[in-house]
């Protein structure tokens, strides 16, 4: 597929998955993520892969976990209501440290909401929606090109750190048609899970290496592993004790936290001399870019931070930034989710403002610009 194409974000996501080596897709149709399932149903059979439309999202999520233990790179895609149904088995994926990718093309909720229209309402659900305590990795593309790039990245992260990785896309990014450049395969960096090299009798399914991640055996390799959603020890055996729980949760949390510098990615635009910074993610980055450019034209020293990873949140960068600027502004298509995280990390060093929208359309750049101007006047 090497070449330049005009395609929408959902389609680019499929191509990214295929380029990353994904050969298993289990899903259930839901607007605005349906195009991912549709394209996968066309592309995977010709690639020698498996496409299966499951009976619901519970089954889709369970099936990709199974396929992952069968040695395949697997993904599913959904939107709000389906994402809620996937939570149960995302939790299983986290507990059993199963690499896979879930693309949530967000639409406006709660409930059925506005199925065909944009929102960014599942940011916290991605973080805390599944039961139990864990760390998650979520990435947020702002364009069809990033739907391609970030899907490959999501697969790499999931394989490297052995966990479900969430792509927090949205309806506009999913349905927008733009230029997508697909590089030749040898220019795409692919990370595959570590496989055990020791003899089966020495193998412990959950004994982490120095990077905090254990090698993962595949069904059929002869390692005869036991995989359970119960709290388990390093052998994978269920142990109903507080000490084992502590050891397991520490492992799940630390493999992300300790590697967070390697995981977290963000981009900055005209931030060097900025007096006020907009922190944005997903489709709202596009509005923020325009607002910052116009502010600069009006002589306002505005800058932009584009969050590529949502979770883990770039705590340190925001803390430092909050000490340098007069205010942080976050546009998001919800009534305040990531802004809470921004506020926490700013730690009172500067005011944190929200430009919110309930969903149904993107945030217009003028609204961000108005807040940029007002902020500088107020903090002058």
């Amino acid at each position, binding site marked *: 597929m090497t070449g330049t194409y005009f395609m929408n974000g959902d389609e680019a996501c499929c191509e990214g998955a295929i380029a990353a080596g994904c050969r*298993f897709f*289990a899903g259930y149709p839901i607007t605005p993520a349906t195009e991912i399932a549709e394209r996968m149903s066309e592309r995977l*059979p*010709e690639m020698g892969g*498996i496409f*299966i439309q*499951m*009976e*619901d999202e*519970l*089954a*889709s999520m*369970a*099936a*990709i*976990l*199974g*396929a*992952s*233990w*069968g*040695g*395949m790179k*697997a993904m599913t895609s959904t939107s709000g209501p389906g994402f809620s149904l996937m939570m*149960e*088995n995302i*939790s*299983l994926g986290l507990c059993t440290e199963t690499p896979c990718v879930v693309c949530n093309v967000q639409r406006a909720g709660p409930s059925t909401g506005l199925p065909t229209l944009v929102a960014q309402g599942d940011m916290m659900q991605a973080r805390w929606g599944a039961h139990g305590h864990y760390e998650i990795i979520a990435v947020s593309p702002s364009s069809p090109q990033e739907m391609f790039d970030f899907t490959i990245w999501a697969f790499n992260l999931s394989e490297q750190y052995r966990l479900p990785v969430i792509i927090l896309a949205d309806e506009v990014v999913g349905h927008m048609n733009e230029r997508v450049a697909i590089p030749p395969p040898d220019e795409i960096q692919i990370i595959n899970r570590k496989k055990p090299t020791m003899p089966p009798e020495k193998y412990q399914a959950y004994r982490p290496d120095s990077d905090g991640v254990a090698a993962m055996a595949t*069904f*059929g*390799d*002869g*390692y*005869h*592993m*036991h*995989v*359970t*959603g*119960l709290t388990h020890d390093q052998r994978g*055996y*269920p142990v109903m004790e507080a000490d084992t729980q502590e050891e397991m949760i520490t492992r799940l949390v630390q493999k992300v936290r300790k590697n967070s510098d390697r995981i977290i990615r963000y981009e900055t635009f005209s931030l060097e001399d900025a007096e006020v910074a907009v922190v944005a993610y997903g489709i709202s980055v596009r509005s923020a870019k325009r607002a910052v450019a116009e502010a600069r034209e009006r002589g306002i020293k505005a800058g932009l931070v584009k969050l590529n990873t949502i979770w883990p949140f770039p705590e340190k960068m925001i803390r430092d930034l909050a000490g340098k600027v007069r205010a942080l502004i976050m546009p998001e298509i919800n009534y305040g989710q990531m802004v809470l995280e921004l506020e926490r990390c700013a730690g009172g060093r500067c005011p944190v403002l929200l430009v919110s929208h309930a969903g149904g359309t993107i945030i217009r750049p003028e609204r961000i610009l108005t807040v940029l101007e007002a902020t500088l006047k107020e903090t002058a």
Partner: protein
Amino acid sequence: MSTNKRKALQPHPYDYLLRTDRIPHIWCPGCGIGTVFGCVLAAIQKSGFPLDDVAMVSGIGCTGRMAGYLNLDSFHTTHGRAIPFATGLKLAKPESCVIVTSGDGDLFAIGGNHLIHAARRNMDLTVVCVNNFNYGMTGGQMAPSTPFGAKTTTSPIGNFEEPFNFCSLAAACGAVYVARWTALHIRWITDSLSEAIQKRGFSFVEILAPCPTSFGRRNKIRSAVELLKFFHERSVIRNHIDPKDAVLDFNKHLIVGKFVDIERPTFLDNYQLIIRRELGDWPGLERQIPQPEKP
């Protein structure tokens, strides 16, 4: 040390299939799951499948714990989701043998939707359902198998719902192999499981099992022996009957037997056929799909 004790230390013939370091197991005295587990091990051994290619997937509940004692690749998943997890596993390793073992509540209440669709697709899985007529793990609540009028902790004055006929449901949804036995029918269970494992497609074997701790206690059949006697007296073998006629009437008969053994292309058979574009266009496709000879 006496001679008797030394004898007791002799390894069991299925020890190599067990995670013996996890024994003793959690099942109650008198529970039927251990019996079924023994039959599953025997069937795995008989099947001749390379052991590395055999996996067990189970859901949540007493029977769901089976996977934890099997010394092969084994997966203990979420409540009701054993079948879709097994679907992914099987499709990733089509040459393998994937056995799903779970209880009646897991497979037919919370997981009912997955079971009917896996049967419809003729996913090549062997599903072993241990039916103990209630939710044992959580202390004996009403299940989709609880007989009308029976007492459980959530039907303390008697169950006012009517249970499923699992075999009839599985057959209606497209299962190619359907059998039911009680935990007393050890040889029949083993034979059925062997056939089911060899069978290409969705096979379903239900085993009625005593649960003296939760079900029996509240229904005046307090001991496992009494429950087994009940099974012994009431069970009637009727092979090859229409499974909708294979009723479980606790006042009369518990119909057991092998009800369905047919051939039908599996999910992967049809997937390959369509991908290779060996067929024409729909409609009219039905005629081109290879049909099995009538048994």
